[in-house]
């Protein structure tokens, strides 16, 4: 049976008797899912995923699959999740308990609030996702962007590439509503003036220019400047986004910056067609691609789309200087085996001929030569183009018309024949001898011609009748008679109309007089233009632009405002973060917001750590209101915001659990889902309560000893950026002196085995400013003092030492009560240290105990079913060894504190610290 179902999964084609086999197979899968063996369950899930991927219905297995949601096996769980996301919507009736409460809570207003909150986040990880959410939920709330505009501009380079695209597109729209047009000057000033004005790159110079001069808003400039480096991105979507930003926002002459990168996009073999379409706009006006003309030469292996687009571009690039080169290239295309392309080339030659008067004659001669080409479609296309060209220059070229008349017999393509007939009629006075003869031939073949040719024959007859009735009267009457009985009503109609118009009779006297003026009126020459014209109504690079139709969800790009809205809305006031437990971080932030340019890598690092700490506070505050709901929001709004949380939870989420929560919570937004799922997921995902204790700051260097330089440090309890086995120490340097301090860096250290990832040398350190510097140190579980030398201005050097609190060398670990007990049993005997302590009764509440323990050690709270038992679990950062702390409350305010760990020295030190903290409190 197993092999049978397996083959069904593999080859859907074989399952011709599917209806018979399917129930059987599903029974089999059900059995497997309900068995006790993980491997069988996994196998079953793999087959189910196989079914889903083939678009087969596996929904009846829903109840059986759902049971496995709490499984310990990660892969199994992940596959269950794949299944749930696929079927949750269809299987709502199977939901055990709907959670309409969630739906009620998830109103749009609230969503916007959350977006607003998250937009303020300084992390590059969040920015992209928040903007995606913004675009989906409230793209019109441009006011939410004001305060974050500069931050987004500055973060942009470090945001992940997909987020960059969304942010750039959003900022383009934003800028079009907030800044005035940089283009209007082009009209107001003459060339020289403009040049002098724009040549200066810096804003200062611009500010000094004439009062009347348009001054670009510094924020507008900031946006342009900060997006420019992204032209070097390997992601074509990013490059295109920057290109369209420049196209829509930059002063006209600056747009050419994007040229090189766009040519690169066009060259890359893969994206070419769509990119070409977008570039077309850029090409048409600016002439900025001219140096790259040869990049657009057509290769025989190009696909038809690309060939036509390249041809378009070459035609647009043509000017007096390069036309001969381009025409020479076009000649080779006319010979192409791809006849549709050859025809397109002939049209392109026609366009070149009309656009550039110098080459009109050359092109005409060339096209006439093509009339003797062996390929009919080439000839036909040439005739049509020649006809149009002749119309633009009606006074010459009777020789060409007579040449075409000679070729007439050999041309069979109806459109070409019709074109020649039209030419004969229109210019019949210039070929007085030939035209009647052509009409004579046509009279003979009239009945077998195509409709379009018949119409033109009637036309020719009428015109000749008016100009040369002596020779053609009879012929005309004959043709009109043939037309009168034609099968096509259009031709019959036309014939009747022409007859009334040209043949004098009693009734039609008035119109008759004007027949000549009607039929032989001088006609305006046709304009030969590209099929790609009129695409500029859509924002460049969008789907709408590429299809030239308005797609759903397209956001109009507004026109520039005449007067710029108040630019001060983008000013960001300094906000004092409320953090009772981390005063030093708050202080540091305040001073830092003054210079917001992340000019070097190091500051970025700081920022990442800063923002994650601020996230801590967010989630902790909302957790009191309802952890689940808060998660819901966070998850709905931003995926990465969520993945940031594990960081603050010391990174012990597994990837899949975070992922699972994310997607499932997303579902909640639009569908009812089973409440029990959520609780199951929350359990299975093992959401750790972060250990937020009050943070202690220690003095590292007093400003008296440090000659003005003072330093403080604390343990931010974040995973280290450099290596997970390091402990981060945040050092805050303050310059209390009245002069600038230079070259601050860390010098010798002891013990020598200590690995330190220090901050880079700080070049110059201005007065009265605090800068937090993150530093990570490998502890090797050594608990002796770390001695360092802090250098300042090279002359001064200060020895300082950091006392590593043993509790800070841990990271929280999550485990269930059962696991805790199991691990504890493994760590008995030598590995157990315990002490009896006395506590005041007021302090035996679990809240106080948790607070005290967490203030000393960076451990996680493990659940406990008994009220008098408190459990905490952690691992050493360096080696990952388990450290289990348990506190058993006994009668008369005594308690038994036990620590189980392999690291016995650490245990005794930790015991000491904890004892002190708990008894003091």
């Amino acid at each position, binding site marked *: 049976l197993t092999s049978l179902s397996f083959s069904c999964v593999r080859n859907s084609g074989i399952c011709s008797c599917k209806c018979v086999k399917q129930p059987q197979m599903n029974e089999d899968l059900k059995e497997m899912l309900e068995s006790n063996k993980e*491997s069988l369950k996994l196998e079953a899930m*793999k087959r189910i995923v196989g079914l*889903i991927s*083939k*678009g087969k219905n596996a929904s009846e297995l829903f109840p059986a699959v759902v049971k496995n949601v709490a499984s310990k*096996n*990660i892969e*199994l769980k*992940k*596959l269950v999740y*794949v299944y749930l996301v*696929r079927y949750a*919507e*269809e299987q709502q009736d199977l939901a055990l308990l709907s959670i309409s409460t969630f739906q009620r809570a998830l109103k749009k207003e609230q969503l916007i609030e959350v977006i607003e909150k998250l937009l303020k986040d300084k992390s590059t990880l969040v920015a992209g996702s928040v903007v*995606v959410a913004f675009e989906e939920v409230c793209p019109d709330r441009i006011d939410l962007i004001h305060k974050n505009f500069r931050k987004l501009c500055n973060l942009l380079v470090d945001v*992940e590439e*997909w987020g960059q695209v969304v942010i750039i597109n959003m900022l383009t729209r934003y800028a079009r509503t907030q800044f005035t047009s940089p283009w209007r000057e082009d009209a107001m000033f003459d060339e020289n003036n403009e040049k002098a004005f724009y040549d200066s790159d810096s804003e200062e110079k611009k500010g000094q220019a004439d009062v009347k001069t348009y001054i670009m808003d510094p924020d507008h400039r900031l946006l342009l400047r900060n997006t420019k480096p992204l032209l070097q991105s*390997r992601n*074509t*979507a990013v490059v295109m*986004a920057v290109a369209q930003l420049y196209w829509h926002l930059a002063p006209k002459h600056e747009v050419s910056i994007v040229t*090189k990168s766009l*040519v*690169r996009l066009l060259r890359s073999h893969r*994206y070419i*067609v*769509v990119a070409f379409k977008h570039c077309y706009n850029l090409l048409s006006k600016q002439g900025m691609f001219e140096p790259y003309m*040869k990049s657009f*030469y057509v*290769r*025989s*292996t190009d*696909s038809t*789309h690309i060939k036509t687009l390249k041809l378009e571009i070459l035609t647009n690039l043509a000017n007096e200087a390069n036309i*001969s080169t381009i025409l*020479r290239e076009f*000649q*080779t295309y006319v*010979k*192409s*085996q791809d006849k549709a392309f050859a025809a397109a080339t002939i049209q392109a030659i026609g366009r070149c001929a009309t656009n550039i008067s110098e080459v009109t*004659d*050359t092109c005409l*001669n*060339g096209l006439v030569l093509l009339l003797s*080409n062996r390929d009919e479609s080439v000839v036909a296309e040439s005739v049509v183009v020649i006809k149009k060209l002749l119309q633009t220059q009606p006074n010459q070229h009777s020789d060409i018309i007579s040449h075409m008349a000679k070729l007439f017999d050999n041309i069979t393509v109806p459109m070409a024949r019709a074109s020649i007939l039209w030419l004969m009629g229109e210019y019949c006075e210039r070929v007085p001898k030939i035209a009647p003869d052509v009409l004579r031939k046509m009279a003979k073949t009239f009945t077998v011609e195509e409709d379009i040719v018949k119409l033109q024959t009637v036309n020719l007859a009428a015109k000749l009748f008016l100009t040369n009735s002596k020779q053609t009267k009879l012929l005309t009457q004959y043709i009109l008679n043939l037309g009168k009985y034609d099968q096509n009503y259009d031709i019959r109609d036309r014939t009747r109309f022409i007859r009334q118009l040209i043949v004098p009779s009693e009734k039609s006297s008035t119109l008759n007089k004007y027949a000549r003026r009607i039929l032989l009126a001088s006609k305006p020459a046709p304009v030969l233009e590209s099929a790609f014209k009129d695409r500029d109504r859509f924002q460049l690079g*969008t*789907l709408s632009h*590429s299809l030239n139709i308005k*797609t*759903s969800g397209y956001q109009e790009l507004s026109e520039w405002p005449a007067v710029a809205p108040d630019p001060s809305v983008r000013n960001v006031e300094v906000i004092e973060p409320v953090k009772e437990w981390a005063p030093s971080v708050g202080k540091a932030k305040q001073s830092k917001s003054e210079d917001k340019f992340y000019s070097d890598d190091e500051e970025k690092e700081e920022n990442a750590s800063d923002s994650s700490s601020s996230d801590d506070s967010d989630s902790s505050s909302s957790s009191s209101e309802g952890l689940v709901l808060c998660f819901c929001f966070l998850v709905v709004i931003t*995926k990465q915001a969520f993945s940031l949380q594990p960081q603050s939870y010391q990174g012990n989420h597994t*990837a899949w659990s*975070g*992922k699972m929560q994310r*997607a499932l919570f997303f579902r909640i937004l639009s569908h009812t889902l089973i409440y029990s799922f959520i609780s199951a997921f929350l359990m299975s995902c093992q959401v750790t309560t972060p250990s937020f204790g009050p943070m202690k700051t220690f003095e590292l260097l007093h400003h008296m000893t440090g000659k003005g330089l003072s330093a403080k440090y604390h343990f931010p309890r974040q*995973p280290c*950026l*450099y290596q*997970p086995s390091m402990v981060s120490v945040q050092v805050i340097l303050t310059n209390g002196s009245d002069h600038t301090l230079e070259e601050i860096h860390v010098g010798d250290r002891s013990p020598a085995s200590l690995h330190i990832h220090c901050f880079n040398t700080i070049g110059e350190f201005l007065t009265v400013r605090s800068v937090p510097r993150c530093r990570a140190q490998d502890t090797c579980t050594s608990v002796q003092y770390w001695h360092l030398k802090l250098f300042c201005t090279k002359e001064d050097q200060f020895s300082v030492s950091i006392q590593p609190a043993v509790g800070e060398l841990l990271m929280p670990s999550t485990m269930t009560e059962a696991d805790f007990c199991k691990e504890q049993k493994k760590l008995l005997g030598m590995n157990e240290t315990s002490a009896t302590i006395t506590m005041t009764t007021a302090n035996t509440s679990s809240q106080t105990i948790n607070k005290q323990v967490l203030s000393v050690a960076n451990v996680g709270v493990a659940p406990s079913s008994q009220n008098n038992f408190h459990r905490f679990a952690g691992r050493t950062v360096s080696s990952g060894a388990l450290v289990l702390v348990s506190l058993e409350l006994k009668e008369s305010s005594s308690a038994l504190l036990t620590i189980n760990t392999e690291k016995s020295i650490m245990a005794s030190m930790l015991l000491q610290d904890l004892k002190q903290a708990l008894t003091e409190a």
Partner: protein
Amino acid sequence: MIHSLFLINASGDIFLEKHWKSVVSRSVCDYFFEAQERATEPENVPPVIPTPHHYLISVLRHRIYFVAVIQSEVPPLFVIEFLHRVVDTFQDYFGVCTEAAIKDNVVVVYELLEEMLDNGFPLATESNILKELIKPPTILRTMVNTITGSTNVGEQLPTGQLSVVPWRRTGVKYTNNEAYFDVVEEIDAIIDKSGSTITAEIQGVIDACVKLTGMPDLTLSFMNPRLLDDVSFHPCVRFKRWEAERILSFIPPDGNFRLLSYHVSSQNLVAIPVYVKHNITFREGSSQGRFDLTLGPKQTMGKAVESVLVSSQLPRGVLNANLNPSQGAYTFDPVTKLLTWDVGKINPQKLPNLKGTMNLQAGASKPDENPTINIQFKIQQMAISGLKVNRLDMYGEKYKPFKGIKYMTKAGKFQVRTYQHFLMVQTSM
């Protein structure tokens, strides 16, 4: 953003579907099939197809159409770029990206797609991060997994994703620390009948394979960085240092990655490493045509030209070809009229030659056009632009890594036109 993905093989079967939001019926692909029927060549299917309720954006790679279904405005290049990343990832994981490979690894494919796109928006597309989440299948691992019941799903949250260097995982350890860089250049050229260059340009890439312990910080400098006209970087490269000093400074991802792609400006003269002597003629009234082709090396700085492959689309009137190669083997497909000649290595002493006759359809007139000749070749140990790496330094770690740099030149779109212009411009200008 991206709603669903359908994979369609050359014969028009949907062999995999994946939905990230609500399920879109596969009947939406009918619009794609319609467009496919209309297209003369597989690659002529329009990349963006509007349907009444959705838009289909597709790429064709390895003879598989990757069709993404979207419902509302999104930059098409965004979707196309993502689809290409999906293909690259499959190739990276399974070695090849074929229908069979995808079907065999359908579970891994699903797990990957699930990670790469979250609710329709790209999430983890960086290969290093994906490999931490989902380990690539190997024969050994598949066996071990089957026996022990363990999985190829990583247990750890990829640490890199959250750091400022999201492309690198932490805690990398190697016993042999190595860093290899491949400078690969491709020449795109059009040569006219007389052998003169109409257009030629060089696209280059530097692919790296870096296996270094810890958090190494590398700098790579060039002897002649001015050659590089236009560059695009892996996100790890510090743009400011490049701007200021023309030095590539970066903390590398672990494993294989493309560090840099560049373009050598067409203003510089491009050396053309091979020349072609050809004589392909059809005579009026004769049912035979002559074919004579000789290849030779030119400006190769003494390096051998290898893996030479000549292909040419002969005119439709050609029935068959009766040719005699001096080396290698040739094939002519009478249906597609495609002539391919696998030449191998060019020996400068004895130049490879392919000579003989082509038979035309009886009574057919002489073909109007002469074919273009496409040439592929490889030259080892040489970058045709003359680009040279000066030195590679490592900071931030104490060990001495083993460093290696390899150069290679390949033909990109290298075409030789065998036809003459009809005299249109020359006469009058």
